[in-house]
Protein backbone atom coordinates (compact mmCIF):
# COMPACT_ATOMS: atom_id res chain seq x y z
CA UNK A 1 0.00 0.00 0.00
CA UNK A 2 1.19 3.46 -0.87
CA UNK A 3 0.49 5.52 2.22
CA UNK A 4 1.20 8.79 0.47
CA UNK A 5 -1.38 8.03 -2.18
CA UNK A 6 -3.92 6.96 0.40
CA UNK A 7 -3.33 10.19 2.30
CA UNK A 8 -3.90 12.22 -0.84
CA UNK A 9 -7.16 10.41 -1.58
CA UNK A 10 -8.18 10.93 2.01
CA UNK A 11 -7.43 14.66 1.91
CA UNK A 12 -9.30 15.11 -1.37
CA UNK A 13 -12.22 13.27 0.23
CA UNK A 14 -12.15 15.59 3.22
CA UNK A 15 -12.14 18.58 0.86
CA UNK A 16 -15.22 17.34 -0.99
CA UNK A 17 -16.77 16.26 2.29
CA UNK A 18 -16.45 19.74 3.78
CA UNK A 19 -18.63 21.07 0.97
CA UNK A 20 -21.17 18.29 1.59
CA UNK A 21 -21.06 19.20 5.27
CA UNK A 22 -21.69 22.90 4.75
CA UNK A 23 -24.55 22.22 2.34
CA UNK A 24 -25.83 19.62 4.78
CA UNK A 25 -25.87 22.29 7.48
CA UNK A 26 -28.03 24.45 5.22
CA UNK A 27 -30.40 21.52 4.76
CA UNK A 28 -30.48 20.83 8.51
CA UNK A 29 -31.15 24.47 9.34
CA UNK A 30 -34.31 24.47 7.24
CA UNK A 31 -35.39 21.08 8.51
CA UNK A 32 -34.85 22.02 12.15
CA UNK A 33 -36.84 25.22 11.94
CA UNK A 34 -39.63 24.28 9.59
CA UNK A 35 -39.61 20.45 9.32
CA UNK A 36 -39.41 20.87 5.56
CA UNK A 37 -37.25 18.38 3.66
CA UNK A 38 -35.85 20.76 1.07
CA UNK A 39 -34.90 18.72 -1.97
CA UNK A 40 -34.11 21.90 -3.89
CA UNK A 41 -31.00 22.55 -1.82
CA UNK A 42 -28.77 21.22 -4.64
CA UNK A 43 -30.40 23.58 -7.14
CA UNK A 44 -30.05 26.55 -4.80
CA UNK A 45 -26.39 25.66 -4.54
CA UNK A 46 -26.26 25.55 -8.34
CA UNK A 47 -27.92 28.95 -8.52
CA UNK A 48 -25.18 30.35 -6.26
CA UNK A 49 -22.55 29.08 -8.69
CA UNK A 50 -24.36 30.67 -11.64
CA UNK A 51 -24.91 33.94 -9.79
CA UNK A 52 -21.17 34.10 -9.18
CA UNK A 53 -20.55 33.31 -12.84
CA UNK A 54 -23.00 36.00 -13.94
CA UNK A 55 -21.39 38.61 -11.72
CA UNK A 56 -17.75 37.66 -12.31
CA UNK A 57 -17.81 36.62 -15.99
CA UNK A 58 -20.92 38.46 -17.19
CA UNK A 59 -20.49 41.81 -15.45
CA UNK A 60 -16.72 41.45 -14.99
CA UNK A 61 -16.93 42.18 -11.30
CA UNK A 62 -13.98 41.19 -9.12
CA UNK A 63 -14.37 37.97 -7.13
CA UNK A 64 -14.66 39.75 -3.79
CA UNK A 65 -17.82 41.44 -5.05
CA UNK A 66 -19.12 38.47 -7.05
CA UNK A 67 -18.99 36.21 -4.01
CA UNK A 68 -21.28 38.41 -1.88
CA UNK A 69 -23.53 38.80 -4.93
CA UNK A 70 -23.87 35.01 -5.10
CA UNK A 71 -24.50 34.69 -1.36
CA UNK A 72 -27.04 37.52 -1.37
CA UNK A 73 -28.90 36.12 -4.35
CA UNK A 74 -29.13 32.85 -2.42
CA UNK A 75 -30.56 34.76 0.55
CA UNK A 76 -33.05 36.51 -1.70
CA UNK A 77 -34.19 33.23 -3.24
CA UNK A 78 -34.55 31.81 0.27
CA UNK A 79 -36.70 34.74 1.38
CA UNK A 80 -38.93 34.63 -1.71
CA UNK A 81 -39.33 30.86 -1.66
CA UNK A 82 -40.20 30.81 2.04
CA UNK A 83 -42.77 33.59 1.79
CA UNK A 84 -44.17 32.66 -1.61
CA UNK A 85 -44.11 28.86 -1.69
CA UNK A 86 -43.52 27.40 1.75
CA UNK A 87 -45.49 29.70 4.09
CA UNK A 88 -48.74 29.19 2.15
CA UNK A 89 -48.21 25.42 2.50
CA UNK A 90 -48.14 25.64 6.29
CA UNK A 91 -50.33 22.93 7.74
CA UNK A 92 -50.40 20.90 4.52
CA UNK A 93 -49.08 17.35 4.57
CA UNK A 94 -45.27 17.06 4.60
CA UNK A 95 -45.42 15.16 1.30
CA UNK A 96 -47.05 18.14 -0.44
CA UNK A 97 -44.37 20.50 0.81
CA UNK A 98 -41.71 17.98 -0.18
CA UNK A 99 -43.19 17.91 -3.72
CA UNK A 100 -43.14 21.71 -3.83
CA UNK A 101 -39.39 21.67 -3.19
CA UNK A 102 -38.90 19.09 -5.95
CA UNK A 103 -40.82 21.35 -8.32
CA UNK A 104 -38.76 24.31 -7.19
CA UNK A 105 -35.58 22.39 -8.02
CA UNK A 106 -36.79 21.74 -11.59
CA UNK A 107 -37.77 25.37 -12.03
CA UNK A 108 -34.36 26.59 -10.88
CA UNK A 109 -32.54 24.11 -13.13
CA UNK A 110 -34.71 25.23 -16.06
CA UNK A 111 -34.11 28.87 -15.22
CA UNK A 112 -30.32 28.66 -15.35
CA UNK A 113 -30.57 26.66 -18.56
CA UNK A 114 -32.66 29.41 -20.16
CA UNK A 115 -30.35 32.17 -19.02
CA UNK A 116 -26.90 30.58 -19.32
CA UNK A 117 -27.50 27.60 -21.60
CA UNK A 118 -27.13 23.87 -21.03
CA UNK A 119 -23.37 23.58 -21.50
CA UNK A 120 -21.05 23.26 -18.51
CA UNK A 121 -19.19 26.46 -17.71
CA UNK A 122 -16.00 27.23 -15.82
CA UNK A 123 -15.95 29.87 -13.12
CA UNK A 124 -13.26 32.56 -13.46
CA UNK A 125 -10.26 31.64 -11.33
CA UNK A 126 -10.24 33.47 -8.04
CA UNK A 127 -8.31 31.32 -5.61
CA UNK A 128 -4.52 31.22 -5.31
CA UNK A 129 -3.21 28.38 -7.45
CA UNK A 130 0.12 27.63 -5.79
CA UNK A 131 0.22 23.89 -5.04
CA UNK A 132 -0.19 22.91 -1.40
CA UNK A 133 1.66 20.11 0.32
CA UNK A 134 0.80 18.68 3.69
CA UNK A 135 4.03 16.92 4.50
CA UNK A 136 4.63 15.16 1.22
CA UNK A 137 0.99 14.80 0.27
CA UNK A 138 -0.21 17.01 -2.55
CA UNK A 139 -3.50 18.80 -2.17
CA UNK A 140 -5.25 20.68 -4.97
CA UNK A 141 -5.29 24.34 -3.83
CA UNK A 142 -8.97 24.86 -4.68
CA UNK A 143 -9.92 21.86 -2.61
CA UNK A 144 -7.82 23.11 0.30
CA UNK A 145 -9.25 26.62 0.24
CA UNK A 146 -12.75 25.24 -0.25
CA UNK A 147 -12.20 23.10 2.82
CA UNK A 148 -11.03 26.08 4.89
CA UNK A 149 -13.91 28.29 3.76
CA UNK A 150 -16.43 25.55 4.45
CA UNK A 151 -15.00 24.97 7.93
CA UNK A 152 -15.18 28.69 8.73
CA UNK A 153 -18.83 28.85 7.67
CA UNK A 154 -19.55 25.70 9.66
CA UNK A 155 -17.92 27.11 12.77
CA UNK A 156 -19.89 30.32 12.36
CA UNK A 157 -23.17 28.40 11.98
CA UNK A 158 -22.54 26.14 14.95
CA UNK A 159 -21.53 28.98 17.27
CA UNK A 160 -24.45 31.14 16.15
CA UNK A 161 -26.77 28.27 16.93
CA UNK A 162 -25.18 27.74 20.31
CA UNK A 163 -24.70 31.30 21.54
CA UNK A 164 -27.01 33.70 19.76
CA UNK A 165 -30.58 34.42 20.69
CA UNK A 166 -31.57 33.50 17.17
CA UNK A 167 -30.02 30.10 17.74
CA UNK A 168 -31.96 29.67 20.97
CA UNK A 169 -35.15 30.69 19.18
CA UNK A 170 -34.40 28.15 16.46
CA UNK A 171 -33.83 25.35 18.95
CA UNK A 172 -37.00 26.24 20.82
CA UNK A 173 -38.99 26.33 17.59
CA UNK A 174 -37.53 22.97 16.59
CA UNK A 175 -38.53 21.46 19.94
CA UNK A 176 -42.10 22.77 20.09
CA UNK A 177 -43.59 25.38 17.80
CA UNK A 178 -46.68 26.07 19.89
CA UNK A 179 -44.67 26.54 23.06
CA UNK A 180 -42.13 28.73 21.26
CA UNK A 181 -44.88 30.92 19.90
CA UNK A 182 -46.48 31.26 23.31
CA UNK A 183 -43.29 32.30 25.13
CA UNK A 184 -42.82 35.17 22.71
CA UNK A 185 -40.66 33.69 19.97
CA UNK A 186 -41.61 35.05 16.58
CA UNK A 187 -41.93 31.66 14.90
CA UNK A 188 -42.71 32.97 11.39
CA UNK A 189 -39.54 35.05 11.59
CA UNK A 190 -37.54 32.01 12.63
CA UNK A 191 -38.93 30.28 9.51
CA UNK A 192 -37.92 33.16 7.25
CA UNK A 193 -34.47 33.58 8.75
CA UNK A 194 -33.69 29.88 8.57
CA UNK A 195 -34.54 29.80 4.86
CA UNK A 196 -32.61 32.99 4.19
CA UNK A 197 -29.48 31.88 6.03
CA UNK A 198 -29.63 28.32 4.69
CA UNK A 199 -30.05 29.39 1.06
CA UNK A 200 -27.27 31.97 1.44
CA UNK A 201 -24.96 29.27 2.82
CA UNK A 202 -25.93 26.86 0.04
CA UNK A 203 -25.30 29.52 -2.60
CA UNK A 204 -21.89 30.25 -1.09
CA UNK A 205 -21.12 26.53 -1.16
CA UNK A 206 -22.19 26.56 -4.81
CA UNK A 207 -19.41 29.03 -5.62
CA UNK A 208 -16.85 26.71 -4.00
CA UNK A 209 -18.25 23.61 -5.71
CA UNK A 210 -18.34 25.47 -9.02
CA UNK A 211 -14.79 26.69 -8.60
CA UNK A 212 -13.59 23.11 -8.22
CA UNK A 213 -15.73 21.24 -10.73
CA UNK A 214 -17.33 23.89 -12.92
CA UNK A 215 -21.03 24.67 -13.14
CA UNK A 216 -23.82 23.12 -15.18
CA UNK A 217 -27.61 22.85 -14.99
CA UNK A 218 -27.23 19.29 -13.71
CA UNK A 219 -25.08 20.41 -10.80
CA UNK A 220 -28.11 19.93 -8.55
CA UNK A 221 -27.30 16.21 -8.26
CA UNK A 222 -24.83 17.40 -5.64
CA UNK A 223 -27.97 17.66 -3.53
CA UNK A 224 -28.40 13.89 -3.80
CA UNK A 225 -25.12 13.30 -1.98
CA UNK A 226 -26.15 15.95 0.54
CA UNK A 227 -29.36 14.02 1.13
CA UNK A 228 -27.29 10.93 1.94
CA UNK A 229 -25.16 13.05 4.26
CA UNK A 230 -28.05 14.42 6.28
CA UNK A 231 -29.87 11.10 6.48
CA UNK A 232 -26.70 9.44 7.73
CA UNK A 233 -25.91 12.28 10.13
CA UNK A 234 -29.46 12.91 11.30
CA UNK A 235 -31.89 15.34 9.67
CA UNK A 236 -31.91 17.72 12.62
CA UNK A 237 -28.27 17.61 13.70
CA UNK A 238 -25.62 20.14 12.74
CA UNK A 239 -22.89 17.90 14.15
CA UNK A 240 -24.41 15.07 12.15
CA UNK A 241 -24.15 17.12 8.96
CA UNK A 242 -20.50 17.85 9.71
CA UNK A 243 -19.49 14.27 10.53
CA UNK A 244 -21.74 12.80 7.85
CA UNK A 245 -20.40 15.22 5.25
CA UNK A 246 -16.76 14.43 5.92
CA UNK A 247 -17.51 10.70 6.14
CA UNK A 248 -19.41 10.55 2.86
CA UNK A 249 -16.78 12.74 1.17
CA UNK A 250 -13.98 10.38 2.18
CA UNK A 251 -15.98 7.26 1.34
CA UNK A 252 -16.82 8.65 -2.11
CA UNK A 253 -13.16 9.52 -2.72
CA UNK A 254 -12.03 5.98 -1.88
CA UNK A 255 -14.88 4.35 -3.76
CA UNK A 256 -14.17 6.53 -6.77
CA UNK A 257 -10.45 5.73 -6.68
CA UNK A 258 -10.52 2.01 -6.04
CA UNK A 259 -13.84 0.89 -7.52
CA UNK A 260 -14.39 3.55 -10.18
CA UNK A 261 -16.56 6.68 -10.30
CA UNK A 262 -19.72 4.75 -11.14
CA UNK A 263 -19.60 3.00 -7.76
CA UNK A 264 -19.67 6.18 -5.67
CA UNK A 265 -23.43 6.32 -5.30
CA UNK A 266 -23.67 2.56 -4.88
CA UNK A 267 -21.39 2.71 -1.86
CA UNK A 268 -22.80 5.88 -0.26
CA UNK A 269 -26.43 4.88 -0.73
CA UNK A 270 -25.64 1.45 0.71
CA UNK A 271 -24.27 3.21 3.78
CA UNK A 272 -27.43 5.27 3.91
CA UNK A 273 -29.63 2.17 3.83
CA UNK A 274 -27.50 0.53 6.50
CA UNK A 275 -27.80 3.58 8.76
CA UNK A 276 -31.55 3.77 8.16
CA UNK A 277 -31.88 0.15 9.25
CA UNK A 278 -29.76 0.47 12.37
CA UNK A 279 -30.45 4.06 13.44
CA UNK A 280 -33.45 5.44 11.53
CA UNK A 281 -32.96 8.90 13.05
CA UNK A 282 -29.35 9.10 11.84
CA UNK A 283 -26.07 8.93 13.71
CA UNK A 284 -26.65 12.16 15.62
CA UNK A 285 -30.33 12.90 15.06
CA UNK A 286 -32.82 13.39 17.86
CA UNK A 287 -34.36 10.13 18.86
CA UNK A 288 -37.83 11.45 19.57
CA UNK A 289 -38.86 10.13 22.95
CA UNK A 290 -42.56 10.17 23.61
CA UNK A 291 -43.51 9.48 27.18
CA UNK A 292 -47.19 9.63 27.75
Amino acid at each position, binding site marked *: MDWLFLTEVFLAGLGAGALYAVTGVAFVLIYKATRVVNLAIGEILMLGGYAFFGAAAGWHLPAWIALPVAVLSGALVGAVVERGLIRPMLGESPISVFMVTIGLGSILAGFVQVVWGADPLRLPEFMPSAPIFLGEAYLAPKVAYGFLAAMLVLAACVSALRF*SRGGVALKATAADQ*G*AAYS*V*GIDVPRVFSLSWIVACAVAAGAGVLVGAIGGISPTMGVFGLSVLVVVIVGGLDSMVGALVGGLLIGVVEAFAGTFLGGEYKFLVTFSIMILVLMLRPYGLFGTHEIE*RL
Partner: protein
Amino acid sequence: MTGAADDVILSVKGVSLAFGGVRALTDVSFSVRKGSITAVIGPNGAGKTSLFNTISGFYRPRAGEIVFGGRNLAGTAPPERARLGLARTFQNIALFRGMTVLDNIKLGRHAHMQTGLLDALVYRGRARREELALRAEIEERIIDFLEIQHIRNAPVATLPYGLRKRVELARALAMRPRLLMLDEPVAGMNREETEDMARFILDVKEEWDVTILMVEHDMGMVMDISDHVVVLNFGQVIAEGSPATVQADPAVIAAYLGAGDLGRRLSAPEAA
Protein backbone atom coordinates in the same frame (compact mmCIF):
# COMPACT_ATOMS: atom_id res chain seq x y z
CA MET B 1 -68.53 42.32 42.52
CA THR B 2 -68.11 45.94 41.54
CA GLY B 3 -68.44 46.19 37.82
CA ALA B 4 -65.82 48.91 37.36
CA ALA B 5 -64.11 48.58 33.99
CA ASP B 6 -60.58 48.98 35.36
CA ASP B 7 -61.24 46.00 37.57
CA VAL B 8 -61.36 43.80 34.48
CA ILE B 9 -58.10 42.50 33.03
CA LEU B 10 -59.52 40.48 30.15
CA SER B 11 -62.79 40.78 28.39
CA VAL B 12 -63.99 38.54 25.63
CA LYS B 13 -66.76 40.20 23.67
CA GLY B 14 -68.98 38.33 21.24
CA VAL B 15 -66.21 36.06 19.98
CA SER B 16 -67.14 33.57 17.26
CA LEU B 17 -64.78 31.09 15.68
CA ALA B 18 -65.37 28.59 12.90
CA PHE B 19 -63.30 25.93 11.18
CA GLY B 20 -64.83 25.68 7.74
CA GLY B 21 -68.49 24.91 8.49
CA VAL B 22 -67.86 23.81 12.05
CA ARG B 23 -68.70 26.49 14.57
CA ALA B 24 -66.30 26.15 17.45
CA LEU B 25 -67.37 29.27 19.35
CA THR B 26 -70.55 31.29 18.99
CA ASP B 27 -70.85 34.79 20.42
CA VAL B 28 -68.82 34.04 23.53
CA SER B 29 -68.62 36.89 26.03
CA PHE B 30 -67.26 37.01 29.56
CA SER B 31 -64.74 38.96 31.60
CA VAL B 32 -61.94 38.08 33.96
CA ARG B 33 -61.50 40.28 37.00
CA LYS B 34 -58.02 41.30 38.04
CA GLY B 35 -56.71 39.10 40.85
CA SER B 36 -59.31 36.39 40.41
CA ILE B 37 -59.22 32.74 39.49
CA THR B 38 -61.67 32.23 36.67
CA ALA B 39 -62.41 28.74 35.42
CA VAL B 40 -63.87 27.75 32.08
CA ILE B 41 -65.64 24.41 32.24
CA GLY B 42 -67.77 22.41 29.87
CA PRO B 43 -68.10 18.94 28.35
CA ASN B 44 -65.51 17.62 25.93
CA GLY B 45 -65.62 19.45 22.63
CA ALA B 46 -67.39 22.45 24.14
CA GLY B 47 -64.74 24.77 22.71
CA LYS B 48 -62.64 25.45 25.80
CA THR B 49 -59.27 24.93 24.18
CA SER B 50 -60.42 26.76 21.04
CA LEU B 51 -61.28 29.66 23.30
CA PHE B 52 -57.80 29.54 24.85
CA ASN B 53 -56.15 29.39 21.46
CA THR B 54 -58.17 32.38 20.33
CA ILE B 55 -57.21 34.40 23.40
CA SER B 56 -53.51 33.59 22.99
CA GLY B 57 -53.69 34.46 19.30
CA PHE B 58 -53.21 31.05 17.69
CA TYR B 59 -56.65 31.30 16.07
CA ARG B 60 -58.21 34.41 14.61
CA PRO B 61 -61.86 34.84 15.59
CA ARG B 62 -64.41 35.32 12.83
CA ALA B 63 -66.19 37.98 14.90
CA GLY B 64 -65.90 39.73 18.23
CA GLU B 65 -63.00 41.19 20.11
CA ILE B 66 -60.68 40.39 22.96
CA VAL B 67 -59.53 43.23 25.18
CA PHE B 68 -56.59 42.63 27.50
CA GLY B 69 -55.49 45.27 29.98
CA GLY B 70 -57.50 47.90 28.12
CA ARG B 71 -55.97 47.00 24.78
CA ASN B 72 -57.79 45.40 21.87
CA LEU B 73 -55.75 42.37 20.85
CA ALA B 74 -57.06 42.21 17.28
CA GLY B 75 -54.19 41.82 14.85
CA THR B 76 -51.52 41.04 17.45
CA ALA B 77 -49.53 37.84 17.04
CA PRO B 78 -48.85 35.48 19.98
CA PRO B 79 -45.32 36.85 20.66
CA GLU B 80 -46.76 40.35 21.03
CA ARG B 81 -49.44 39.05 23.38
CA ALA B 82 -46.74 37.33 25.41
CA ARG B 83 -44.96 40.68 25.78
CA LEU B 84 -48.19 42.29 26.94
CA GLY B 85 -48.32 39.81 29.82
CA LEU B 86 -50.31 36.85 28.57
CA ALA B 87 -48.80 33.47 29.41
CA ARG B 88 -50.24 30.01 28.99
CA THR B 89 -49.70 26.31 29.46
CA PHE B 90 -50.96 23.59 27.17
CA GLN B 91 -53.29 20.67 27.65
CA ASN B 92 -50.71 18.19 26.36
CA ILE B 93 -47.66 19.85 27.94
CA ALA B 94 -45.56 21.76 25.44
CA LEU B 95 -42.03 21.76 26.80
CA PHE B 96 -38.84 22.16 24.81
CA ARG B 97 -37.68 18.58 24.58
CA GLY B 98 -33.97 17.96 24.61
CA MET B 99 -33.45 20.89 26.97
CA THR B 100 -33.08 20.93 30.72
CA VAL B 101 -35.64 22.23 33.18
CA LEU B 102 -33.61 25.40 33.73
CA ASP B 103 -33.26 26.06 29.99
CA ASN B 104 -36.99 25.68 29.58
CA ILE B 105 -37.65 28.18 32.34
CA LYS B 106 -35.09 30.60 30.94
CA LEU B 107 -36.87 30.56 27.60
CA GLY B 108 -39.87 31.98 29.42
CA ARG B 109 -38.13 35.34 29.61
CA HIS B 110 -37.51 35.38 25.88
CA ALA B 111 -40.57 37.52 25.36
CA HIS B 112 -39.07 40.39 27.28
CA MET B 113 -35.69 40.47 25.64
CA GLN B 114 -36.19 42.78 22.75
CA THR B 115 -32.89 42.25 21.06
CA GLY B 116 -31.77 41.17 17.66
CA LEU B 117 -29.68 38.29 16.47
CA LEU B 118 -26.30 39.83 17.18
CA ASP B 119 -27.05 41.45 20.52
CA ALA B 120 -26.09 38.37 22.45
CA LEU B 121 -22.51 38.86 21.31
CA VAL B 122 -22.36 42.56 22.11
CA TYR B 123 -21.56 44.00 25.50
CA ARG B 124 -24.54 46.02 26.61
CA GLY B 125 -23.41 47.79 29.74
CA ARG B 126 -24.25 47.72 33.40
CA ALA B 127 -27.98 48.28 33.27
CA ARG B 128 -28.26 45.30 31.05
CA ARG B 129 -26.18 43.11 33.35
CA GLU B 130 -28.24 44.15 36.33
CA GLU B 131 -31.38 43.29 34.50
CA LEU B 132 -30.00 39.87 33.69
CA ALA B 133 -29.08 39.35 37.34
CA LEU B 134 -32.58 40.32 38.36
CA ARG B 135 -34.04 37.83 35.93
CA ALA B 136 -31.79 35.08 37.23
CA GLU B 137 -33.01 35.89 40.72
CA ILE B 138 -36.63 35.65 39.62
CA GLU B 139 -35.91 32.29 38.03
CA GLU B 140 -34.42 31.07 41.30
CA ARG B 141 -37.50 32.24 43.17
CA ILE B 142 -39.73 30.42 40.72
CA ILE B 143 -37.72 27.23 41.05
CA ASP B 144 -37.85 27.41 44.84
CA PHE B 145 -41.50 28.27 44.83
CA LEU B 146 -42.53 25.33 42.65
CA GLU B 147 -40.20 22.96 44.52
CA ILE B 148 -38.26 21.81 41.49
CA GLN B 149 -34.70 22.53 42.71
CA HIS B 150 -33.81 18.86 42.61
CA ILE B 151 -34.56 18.50 38.91
CA ARG B 152 -33.29 21.85 37.64
CA ASN B 153 -30.60 20.30 35.46
CA ALA B 154 -32.55 17.25 34.38
CA PRO B 155 -33.66 16.95 30.75
CA VAL B 156 -37.41 17.52 30.69
CA ALA B 157 -38.09 14.41 28.62
CA THR B 158 -37.08 12.17 31.51
CA LEU B 159 -39.45 13.70 34.06
CA PRO B 160 -42.71 12.17 35.22
CA TYR B 161 -45.93 13.79 34.08
CA GLY B 162 -46.74 15.75 37.23
CA LEU B 163 -43.32 17.36 37.35
CA ARG B 164 -43.45 18.30 33.68
CA LYS B 165 -46.73 20.08 34.34
CA ARG B 166 -44.96 21.99 37.10
CA VAL B 167 -42.04 22.91 34.85
CA GLU B 168 -44.46 24.23 32.28
CA LEU B 169 -46.06 26.36 34.97
CA ALA B 170 -42.61 27.61 35.99
CA ARG B 171 -41.83 28.62 32.43
CA ALA B 172 -45.11 30.50 32.17
CA LEU B 173 -44.33 32.29 35.45
CA ALA B 174 -40.88 33.26 34.18
CA MET B 175 -42.70 35.29 31.55
CA ARG B 176 -43.90 37.42 34.48
CA PRO B 177 -47.43 37.40 33.15
CA ARG B 178 -50.34 39.51 34.27
CA LEU B 179 -52.76 36.83 33.14
CA LEU B 180 -51.84 33.17 33.34
CA MET B 181 -53.91 30.79 31.26
CA LEU B 182 -53.79 27.15 32.36
CA ASP B 183 -55.20 24.53 30.02
CA GLU B 184 -56.20 21.58 32.22
CA PRO B 185 -53.51 22.02 34.88
CA VAL B 186 -54.43 18.83 36.76
CA ALA B 187 -55.57 16.58 33.91
CA GLY B 188 -54.31 13.06 34.46
CA MET B 189 -53.02 13.76 37.95
CA ASN B 190 -53.70 11.70 41.03
CA ARG B 191 -55.31 13.12 44.15
CA GLU B 192 -52.06 14.19 45.78
CA GLU B 193 -50.65 15.81 42.66
CA THR B 194 -53.93 17.60 42.09
CA GLU B 195 -53.87 19.04 45.59
CA ASP B 196 -50.27 20.19 45.12
CA MET B 197 -51.15 21.89 41.87
CA ALA B 198 -54.22 23.55 43.38
CA ARG B 199 -52.03 24.91 46.16
CA PHE B 200 -49.50 26.21 43.63
CA ILE B 201 -52.23 27.92 41.62
CA LEU B 202 -53.61 29.64 44.73
CA ASP B 203 -50.10 30.71 45.74
CA VAL B 204 -49.37 32.06 42.27
CA LYS B 205 -52.44 34.22 42.57
CA GLU B 206 -51.58 35.45 46.06
CA GLU B 207 -47.79 35.75 46.06
CA TRP B 208 -47.13 36.62 42.45
CA ASP B 209 -50.13 38.81 41.95
CA VAL B 210 -51.16 37.01 38.80
CA THR B 211 -54.70 36.64 37.53
CA ILE B 212 -55.60 33.08 36.54
CA LEU B 213 -57.83 31.83 33.76
CA MET B 214 -58.05 28.07 33.58
CA VAL B 215 -59.79 25.29 31.73
CA GLU B 216 -60.31 22.28 33.95
CA HIS B 217 -62.32 19.08 34.12
CA ASP B 218 -61.72 18.29 37.77
CA MET B 219 -64.89 19.70 39.27
CA GLY B 220 -63.79 19.35 42.85
CA MET B 221 -60.71 21.43 42.16
CA VAL B 222 -62.60 24.02 40.10
CA MET B 223 -65.24 24.51 42.77
CA ASP B 224 -62.62 24.71 45.53
CA ILE B 225 -60.36 27.39 44.15
CA SER B 226 -62.26 29.45 41.54
CA ASP B 227 -63.84 32.81 42.17
CA HIS B 228 -65.79 32.80 38.95
CA VAL B 229 -66.89 30.00 36.65
CA VAL B 230 -67.85 30.22 32.97
CA VAL B 231 -69.66 27.23 31.49
CA LEU B 232 -69.33 26.49 27.77
CA ASN B 233 -71.41 24.01 25.83
CA PHE B 234 -71.34 23.57 22.07
CA GLY B 235 -69.29 26.75 21.78
CA GLN B 236 -71.71 28.93 23.71
CA VAL B 237 -71.67 30.33 27.22
CA ILE B 238 -74.60 28.69 28.96
CA ALA B 239 -73.96 29.98 32.46
CA GLU B 240 -71.52 31.98 34.50
CA GLY B 241 -71.17 33.13 38.08
CA SER B 242 -69.79 31.96 41.40
CA PRO B 243 -69.15 28.21 41.78
CA ALA B 244 -72.28 27.87 43.88
CA THR B 245 -74.49 29.67 41.36
CA VAL B 246 -73.17 27.65 38.46
CA GLN B 247 -73.60 24.38 40.29
CA ALA B 248 -77.22 25.12 40.94
CA ASP B 249 -77.94 26.20 37.37
CA PRO B 250 -80.34 23.75 35.65
CA ALA B 251 -78.79 24.42 32.22
CA VAL B 252 -75.39 23.39 33.53
CA ILE B 253 -76.70 20.24 35.16
CA ALA B 254 -78.48 19.38 31.92
CA ALA B 255 -75.34 19.95 29.87
CA TYR B 256 -73.44 17.60 32.11
CA LEU B 257 -76.09 14.93 32.49
CA GLY B 258 -74.80 13.21 29.38
CA ALA B 259 -71.60 12.69 31.32
CA GLY B 260 -73.62 11.12 34.15
CA ASP B 261 -71.08 10.99 36.91
CA LEU B 262 -69.92 14.55 36.30
CA GLY B 263 -73.50 15.79 36.43
CA ARG B 264 -74.01 14.23 39.81
CA ARG B 265 -70.74 15.59 41.10
CA LEU B 266 -71.74 19.04 39.92
CA SER B 267 -75.02 19.00 41.77
CA ALA B 268 -73.50 17.35 44.86
CA PRO B 269 -69.76 18.03 44.88
CA GLU B 270 -67.65 16.00 47.23
CA ALA B 271 -66.27 17.78 50.25
CA ALA B 272 -62.65 18.72 49.75
